[in-house]
């Protein structure tokens, strides 16, 4: 089959699914669900399911719009060149339309089924990722991840607001945890794939400011992450189970950031400390939010005060 014929064929449904970045979505669904389960109050399971579905659809829509806009850049990077648009399995405009439909429908269903405050935050998160991050900041500033990382921080806040119907300090703290976590998580990745970003001209921190500055900033954010992660316990929003685990996990995070901060890589470097930090950062977030829910359940059962 020629490339031209492949372009005229209708895209497979699996390619539409791939556009939604399912692996990223799994983290979005998990943090959104944890935000919902950790919130004080009750939510009907059908409404709760609808809220999580809308968070997932919104994230998928934003991811599709991101791939529509960045199709040319994706084609130039090894990690992303097999995506549906650069690989020639899908028309670019199909991805755009799919992204718009997913985004609009997720906000409308959230508004009608769950509540308009949660829907408004969902809309902001989609615009934040698709416009502020993808179109505006990513190609312009090495701080793109810091500010744009806020987009990924919205799901637990949306999950919380879906239950309570208002914004208090706790959902803002959950937002702040992911906001602080994103730079060291992403820069660890950018350090060992920086050649790809340099090739397509994306001003990622290691490309623009160099390794030394990036490594120092990873450490700074890892230090800042610790009090933010423990803050829900300090303000009395969670019990000791969460507080102690948050501090222990944050110390491990800091411990893994330290070797990344003090070393310099050379050609042919296996980049093991960076890969270790990146891998742990994913475990860290899953564990932290999982423990947040466990703490809430333990409090409800009267196991802790």
């Amino acid at each position, binding site marked *: 089959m020629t490339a031209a*014929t492949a372009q005229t*064929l*209708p895209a497979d449904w699996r390619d*539409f699914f791939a556009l939604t970045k399912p692996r990223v979505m799994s983290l979005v669904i998990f943090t959104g669900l944890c935000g919902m389960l950790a919130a004080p109050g009750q939510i009907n399971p*059908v*409404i709760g399911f*609808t809220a999580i579905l809308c968070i997932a659809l919104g994230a998928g829509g934003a991811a599709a719009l991101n791939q529509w806009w960045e199709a040319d850049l994706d084609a130039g990077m090894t990690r992303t060149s097999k995506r549906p648009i650069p690989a020639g399995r899908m028309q670019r405009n199909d991805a755009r339309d799919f992204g718009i439909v997913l985004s609009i429908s997720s906000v409308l269903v959230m508004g*009608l089924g769950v509540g308009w405050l949660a829907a408004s935050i969902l809309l902001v998160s989609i615009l934040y990722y698709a416009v502020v991050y993808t179109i505006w900041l990513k190609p312009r500033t090495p701080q793109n991840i810091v500010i744009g990382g806020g987009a990924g921080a919205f799901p637990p806040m949306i999950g919380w607001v879906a239950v309570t119907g208002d914004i208090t300090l706790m959902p803002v703290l959950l937002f702040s945890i992911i906001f602080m976590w994103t730079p060291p998580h992403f820069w660890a990745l950018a350090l060992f794939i920086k050649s790809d970003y340099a090739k397509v001209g994306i001003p990622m921190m290691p490309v623009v400011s160099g390794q030394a500055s990036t490594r120092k900033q990873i450490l700074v954010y890892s230090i800042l992450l610790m009090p933010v992660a423990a803050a829900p316990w300090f303000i009395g929003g969670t019990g000791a189970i969460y507080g102690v685990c948050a501090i222990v996990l944050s110390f491990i995070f800091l411990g893994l950031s330290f070797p990344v901060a003090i070393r310099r890589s050379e050609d042919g470097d296996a980049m093991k400390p960076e890969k270790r930090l990146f891998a742990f950062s994913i475990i860290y977030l899953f564990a932290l939010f999982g423990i947040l829910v466990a703490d809430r359940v333990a409090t409800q059962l009267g196991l802790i005060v």
Partner: protein
Amino acid sequence: MTPEELAEFRRRQKSRNLALGGLLVFFALLFYAITIVRMGD
């Protein structure tokens, strides 16, 4: 379009139609469930 390409075209068309149909049925059921829950509020 060669017969092989036509067969592939039909296969993809069918799989997309099935996926879309399934999605529509799912949302119809979801809206029904949301309506029932909201009526009880």
